[in-house]
Structure formats: structure tokens, C-alpha cells
């Protein structure tokens, strides 16, 4: 499908309104979100490329089917991430398993974000310690891994994370603090210096 550049200038919310009038406009929303959501799902679920694509398709089909439920008070991105999050959880339930791995190493910005936020010393050897930090993150509880992913990989603010996970702001702040504490504890165990 050839994309019209005029539509690319429109906001998500405008595209939602236009999609409700013309189904074909939905293609522009898919185009805008397919890579981001694909990566997000890949990090949440340790699945094959085909399985990830199936989940992604399901996310877009559900998004279209529920387009009238979109609350303009939220960011569209928060809403579609929420659908993706729910679809991943639903997939886990279907497979009767819990997610085991979050592929944090796939994003080069992540390490920088987390080092900065956790006050890790600058001289940290990013190449050597990258695997170590990834291992530490993967050893955290799933709820902490997920929230760190939203915060440091997807770079969502508290309000957006609250809207995606459907939890109050206070709970999000608590979860992030606990995730950081658990992460720092593991860092200290591994002798990685903090500022």
C-alpha cells in the first residue's frame, strides 16, 4: 500500500478520527506503530519472529475493533501499548507460561539511560558489563523488568506507564522505586560501583 505523506503529518488522534470514516487510513497508524510495538512485544515475550508477528497483527485488529473505545484524554500511544501489553499477557495465559526473558540488550540507548538514572560510574565498561547488566535485569521479577522496560527502553513517563498498565501513578512510582532498589542490590552484589 502506498502511503500518502499528508496523512503522515497528522497526529495519532486525527488518524483515529479519519480511520473511523475510512478504514484504509488505519494503514498509517499501523505503519507508525508496527516497529515500536514489534520491539516492545519481542522484549516482553521470548517468542519466535512469527509468533511476535501474530501477536502484533492481533493487536492491530483489536485496536481497530475497539477504536471507538479510545479515550482522547489518553495518548493514543499509551492506549495501543496497553492493548499490546494485554495481548502479550493473554498470550502467556494461553500458553500457560510466564515470560522468562526480556531482551534488554537489543537497544543501545537502554544501557546509557539506565546508567544515567542509576548513577553508575561513567568508567563502567559498557561492552564488558553490558551482558552482566542484562543478566541482572533478567534476574529481576517480571513486573519490575516490565516497568523498567517501559521507563528506560520505551522512555515513557509515569502518566503513560500508568495508562498502559492501568495502575495509579503512586503504584507506578512505588514499582519503579522497588525495581531500582532490586537492581541496585544486584549491582552491588556484582561489584559494579555506584556514584
Amino acid at each position, binding site marked *: 500500500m502506498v502511503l500518502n505523506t499528508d496523512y503522515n503529518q497528522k497526529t495519532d488522534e486525527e488518524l483515529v478520527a479519519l480511520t473511523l470514516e475510512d478504514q484504509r487510513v488505519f494503514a498509517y497508524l499501523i505503519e507508525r506503530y508496527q516497529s515500536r510495538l514489534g520491539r516492545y512485544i519481542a522484549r516482553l515475550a521470548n517468542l519466535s519472529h512469527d509468533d511476535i508477528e501474530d501477536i502484533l497483527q492481533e493487536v492491530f485488529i483489536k485496536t481497530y*475493533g475497539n477504536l471507538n*473505545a479510545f479515550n482522547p*484524554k489518553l495518548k493514543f500511544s499509551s492506549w495501543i501499548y496497553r492493548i499490546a501489553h494485554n495481548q502479550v499477557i493473554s498470550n502467556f495465559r494461553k500458553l500457560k507460561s510466564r515470560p522468562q526473558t526480556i531482551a534488554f540488550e537489543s537497544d543501545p540507548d537502554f544501557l546509557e539511560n539506565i546508567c544515567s538514572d542509576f548513577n553508575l560510574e561513567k568508567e563502567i565498561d559498557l561492552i564488558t558489563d553490558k551482558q552482566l547488566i542484562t543478566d541482572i535485569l533478567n534476574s529481576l521479577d517480571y513486573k519490575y523488568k516490565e516497568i523498567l522496560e517501559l521507563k528506560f527502553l520505551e522512555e515513557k513517563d509515569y502518566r503513560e506507564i500508568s495508562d498502559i498498565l492501568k495502575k*495509579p501513578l503512586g503504584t507506578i512510582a512505588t514499582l519503579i522505586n522497588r525495581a531500582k532498589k532490586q537492581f541496585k542490590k544486584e549491582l552491588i552484589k556484582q561489584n559494579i560501583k555506584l556514584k
Partner: protein
Amino acid sequence: MDNIIDKVLKAIKDQKPQARWKFRLKDYALWLAGVLSVLIGSFSVSVAIYMLVNNDWLLGQQISGTFWAFIFATLPYFWLVAILFLTVLAYYNFRHTSEGYRYQLITLTLGSVLISLFLGAVFYYIGLGQMIDESLYKNIPSYERLASPRRAIWMDVAAGRLAGQVVAIRANDFDLVDFRHRLWVVERPLSGGYILNRGEVVRIIGEKIDEIHFKAEKILPFDMPGKIPGLRPNMPTRPLF
């Protein structure tokens, strides 16, 4: 993932987004259920206040031995559990509205409880607590055993307590139908004192003589109409059964 756009568009080709009214209806239904939970919770609060205010505090030790035993025996457990259940229900409903997740558990529960307490106090003050209690008592056979500890306490004839409605008055005795619809012939106390009215609901301290006779030592009104807020003044003449 190159062809995902085509795949999704193909999949939704014959679909339409669900109508907006369906989502709104669900949200309104949750709001309505939440508001109803708070409202019914307020009715429960009004009955609980009515029961607590109208309890036999002055006779507590005489009835149960100790003040604390009396409190444990007469707390309106049914209504307290109802208030708790309705608070949980209100929380569940509000939490599941479209933006309910933004509020903390404490905000939603404390909000529901405070509104229920305020409305419950207002409802009690206008006499709704008493009205609900009596209406349930009249219409639900096991209500007295399940949810009205005070009535149960005044049905312990072996312990010298009897209560019910006066249905006939004679010079030395009167007929009384108790809360379990049983007829008693009650011998008046020698000292007299209390002026009985037909139709009035009274509580009596005395002694059981046999299966239909009871000797009264002290007669008191079951409620204290007009003396405390929340009790309707016309209460003594209203038919109870």
C-alpha cells in the same frame, strides 16, 4: 513484518469498529453499579447507626454480665459485613470504569466509606434506618435471628427478657405477640408505672411462668421515639405484624 499492513487490512476488511455506545453503556453501568453500592452501603450505615444508638446501653451489664460481652453480643454484625461488602463492590466498580485505575485503592475505598457514612448519618436522622430495619423484619422471617441481635436478646424468655407488640390490654395483664409471632399473657408489675398502649412494641424484664405466661417486673418501650434523633415519633401506634 513488511506485509503486516496488508494482512491487517485484509483481516478487518469486513469489520467495523464496535459502536461507541456499547463502550459508553459498559462504563455507565459500572458507574451506576458503583453509585448503587455506595447508596445501599449508606442504607446499611443508617440501620447500623439506628441499632447502635437504640441499643440497651443502660441495661448492658444486666443483660450480658459485662459491658464488653454486651457489646460483642449486640454489634450489628450483619450490617457491618454488608457495609464492608458494599465498599469492596463500590471499589471494584469504580476501579473498572474507564479512568478508575488512576485512583489509589485508599482513595476509592476511603471516598466510598466517607460518602456512605455521611449519607448513612443523614438517612438515619430522617428515620430511614428504623424504617429499613422494621420493613426487613416484617418481610423476612429469619431477619431477627440473622441481623437483629437486639431483638434476639429480647427473645430470651428463659433469661427473663421478652419483647413484642401489645395486642390486648386488661386490668391486671395484657396480651403480647413476640418477635416470633408467639402469643404471651403478661402479668403487669405490681408497682404499675408504665402506661401501655395497644399496638405498642415493648420490652419486658421479668420471669417466665409457663409456656404462655410471663410475669413482668419492668416494662419499657422497645424504642425511644422522639427522644433520640432517627426514631420516628409515631412509632408506638404503627402495626408491627
